[in-house]
């Protein structure tokens, strides 16, 4: 199983979680985070301009679709990074 982690500006919350549903993820976990990157510092002081991190556990097949969609539709618009980690889950049939 794979964990895909997306760190992006919090305004992307709605579209990102909608995308996760579209590609077939059964859930997600969301954190409010601070960050620094090409688009500068985000201190999580004003909710509209802070960062979120979304972790989603999906089967490898779904990962490809998800990363492609992120690449095509999200990266041009939002301050965002995404990466994938190999994980071993308990109760894999859940995801």
């Amino acid at each position, binding site marked *: 199983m794979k964990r895909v982690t997306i760190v992006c500006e919090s*305004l992307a919350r709605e579209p990102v979680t909608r995308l996760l549903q579209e590609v077939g993820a059964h859930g997600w976990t969301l954190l409010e985070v601070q960050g620094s990157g090409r688009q500068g510092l985000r201190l999580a*002081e*004003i909710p*509209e301009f802070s960062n979120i991190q979304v972790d989603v556990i999906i089967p490898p097949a779904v990962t490809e679709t998800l990363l492609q969609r992120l690449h095509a539709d999200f990266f*041009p618009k*939002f301050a965002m990074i995404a990466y994938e980690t190999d994980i071993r889950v308990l109760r894999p049939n859940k995801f």
Partner: protein
Amino acid sequence: MNSELVSALGANLLSPAVLFFVLGVIATLAKSDLKFPEPLYTTLTLYLLVAIGFKGGVAIREAGLMQVWLPALGAILLGAAIPLWTYPVLRFGGGLSAVDAAAISAHYGSVSAVTFIAATNFLTQVSQPFEAYATAFLAVMEAPAIIVGVVLGKLALPREGRSLAASIRGAIHEAMLGRSVVLLVGALFIGWASGKRGAQMTEGFFVTPFQGILALFLLEMGLVAARRFGDLRKVGLFLAAFGIAAPLVNGCLGIGLASLVGLGAGGTMLMGVLAASASYIAAPAAMRLSLPEANPTFYLTAALAVTFPFNLTVGLPLYYALARWAVGNP
């Protein structure tokens, strides 16, 4: 008028609200680690919007809708019209791209609730009565310029996937159902519905600590605004100058309009402040979602690091002096 302007300027600069703002600026420049936790920021804005909305609603009930509709309509039209002059100036005078010019225009046509609240505070302080129902103008002026700005920007972009209509619908949704509009309009209705009775019951919360809470919030605004000062170099001199010229021009437009529709000195100043202020929360959020091609550094730096501090410190007493002169109340 001159000596009055000077004394109003002094009173404003020595008010706790402005001094706390300056403290925030200094703390950031001195690299202190002072920072408000996000929930406190959110709570303070929630409080300020609800309190001002509620009191505005009570005032509308007392004044009657007949008093309010005409200047409110004027405010809507003014908000929608401002981008029509700022867009060409930014595009052709400043050489900005079409999307950036459109996005910045949206910010200056829209309004800053905090600037408005600071203006009511200023009026209280100089004991100038004002039409408290002016909060209604604040509520209706947030959206129109945002929609106009999105249209201007989208027209300039190559048409792709999402149609212009869909973008505008998105922007309208953002502008109408954003946190600040819901709180402000909701509280206006509640103030209107619960009237004097409701005002008495909640006075100890919406009135008693109001000025102190505003001062605390301006400390945070000073921290936030000063963090953008470093970007001033990136945006260039033209945009910095625009950040001061635009509120002066728009302030005069607002004051002119208000005196035409017959508001008093207080309400006239408030309309001027609304026109002069630039949005730095609702408009940026709408632009990120509806016009992501525009560069946030431009609009945020201009609105937050130039126009907001200018209006808060020098602008308020200036618009007040102009408003008094415009309504013939020397």
